């Protein structure tokens, strides 16, 4: 009966040891994943990238690292850190189902010696402190640079902008520059025709008074149910299509006035 108790004790001991080892592996993988996350986030913050770009590799590393360590880190790691149970732990584990006098004596010895083994002896404190310092340093850099919202893409560079690296059309000197008719703004605002609003047709044109669209003012005006002054529906008389007739009338009028003089 005592032998059974002893064997159960030993089996429970090994379960506890494996659990402790698992916690340490998880902790180390977590620290490494945090370093990766903050490092990548620090770099992509200069490109206004999404936080998910940093989170995904960190999560993948966390899972892969944990699985790898669980496969490769064994009881021998505990033995290497605790000389008093060197070779005893592995021997007891490999013969846990055997029954003989010497083996039970070995189990007794192991149970006595394992009391002096602590989880702290398995942690490499220097490594942990180093990682924590790295995390703190990277976090500080992120905190310092984040208020400035630096976007490297928007920096004017002599070679034509950052689009060369992040994509966009390349400047090709060999390509002919198309002639642009500056009076024709259909390339910018779309065709002069017709914005369909319900069953009515409207001609829209942007007021020439302001060069920059004031979104706040437009929102304020919209809230006050005032039609924003920057965008208004023009009557037919203001339509660009009608403009030549108006000009013709004005021209004729001016000529008549000149004739009077």
């Amino acid at each position, binding site marked *: 009966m*005592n032998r059974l108790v002893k064997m159960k004790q030993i089996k429970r001991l090994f379960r506890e040891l494996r659990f402790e080892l698992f916690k340490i592996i998880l902790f180390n993988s977590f620290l490494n994943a945090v370093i990766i996350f903050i490092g990548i986030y620090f770099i992509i913050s200069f490109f206004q990238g999404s936080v998910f770009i940093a989170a995904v590799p960190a999560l993948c590393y966390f899972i892969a690292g944990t699985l790898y360590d669980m496969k490769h880190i064994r009881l021998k790691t505990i033995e290497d850190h605790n000389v008093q149970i060197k070779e005893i732990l592995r021997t007891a584990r490999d013969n846990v189902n055997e029954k003989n*006098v010497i*083996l039970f004596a070995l189990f*007794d010895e192991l149970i006595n010696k394992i009391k002096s083994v602590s989880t702290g002896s398995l942690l490499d404190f220097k490594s942990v402190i180093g990682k924590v310092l790295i995390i703190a340093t990277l976090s500080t850099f992120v905190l310092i640079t984040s208020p400035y919202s630096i976007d490297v893409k928007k920096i004017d560079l002599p070679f034509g902008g950052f689009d060369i690296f992040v994509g966009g059309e390349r400047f090709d000197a060999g390509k002919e520059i198309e002639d642009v008719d500056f009076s024709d703004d259909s390339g910018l605002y779309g065709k002069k025709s017709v914005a369909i609003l319900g069953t009515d047709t409207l001609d829209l044109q942007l007021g020439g008074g302001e060069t920059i669209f004031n979104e706040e003012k437009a929102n304020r005006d919209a809230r006050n149910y005032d039609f924003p002054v920057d965008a208004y529906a023009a009557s037919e008389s203001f339509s660009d299509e009608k403009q030549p007739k108006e000009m013709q009338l004005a021209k004729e009028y001016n000529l008549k006035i000149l004739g009077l003089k």
Partner: protein
Amino acid sequence: MPVRKIHLRKKKISTTKTQSKSSSVPGHLEKKHDSRATLAAVKNIEKLKSTFSSIHKEIEKVIIGQQSVVEQVMICILSDGNALLESFPGLGKTTLIRTIAQVMDLSFSRIQSTPDLMPSDITGTYLIEDVDGKKQFRFQKGPLFANLVLCDEINRATPKTQSALLEAMQEKQVTVGNQTFELDTPFFILATQNPIDQEGTYPLPEAQTDRFLMKINLDYPTYEEELAIVEKYTKHVTKGKLNVLLSKESLRLLQGLARQVPIANDIKKRAVEIVHKTRTKKELIEFGASPRASINLILAAKAKALLEGRKYVSKTDIDELAFPILRHRIILSFKAEREGKTTDEVIKEILKG
């Protein structure tokens, strides 16, 4: 991460006595099957180290130096194996084995091998004797019927006599005519060979040297040791009395106990790997060791662990015992011999990787 000591819930251990079902458990070490019995066993195993060191000290009264040889002979005895000792004449081989026999209360006999030695000279023969007027045969036991047998210069005996010896080594029995006689246990043969003066000898073939657990090299003593030997053996005529420290029964039980010493799987694999490499390293070794070498290596390592009072086999046990276990089982290649390498050097290379 908080530091956490590993604790086991203490349960009340039952003190009921149970009968032992295992026949391999030594009787005097397993008196009761409860925690007190296991504790007693632990104490006895740890006490073994002091017992064996006492045996060493007792042997040192007669044999000066040769600590490693004494240890290897003890390992052979505990492993229930036999040893082949290669040494020059006059190094105290007979004295050594006789001393061990006295300290362990074992019977001792010596066989001096010569080319005219017959198998019956060592196994025994039938004699006709007159009992109450009737003539009858009586078997007269030969020198093999002892616990410790020293067979000097075994390479001088004829192959026929060698085979009779080998049967005793392997089977622990002798066959005379059509009758088989069991030998008393423990039974240990220490066969010696002289590395010089090989003329007119019958070298043991490899198949037969493989049956020896170890090949022990006995070297000349150091200057200081020789001075102590001279001091001891030139002063007094009478020899000191030796104390019996281990009985035959205890030795038999210890032989059973030695096999129970547990070994980790990776250390077991290392032992097999070492022997396996002797067969694959063709550039250095022509013929490698057999699986018997793997068995003997692990058995010897277990005996060594017990001798040192440990309850487990260590990697260093395997590495240290690889030399005496393998040196007589491998045949070097021509390339290795041309480079002047010895078997020990080749074994060292195998152990390195």
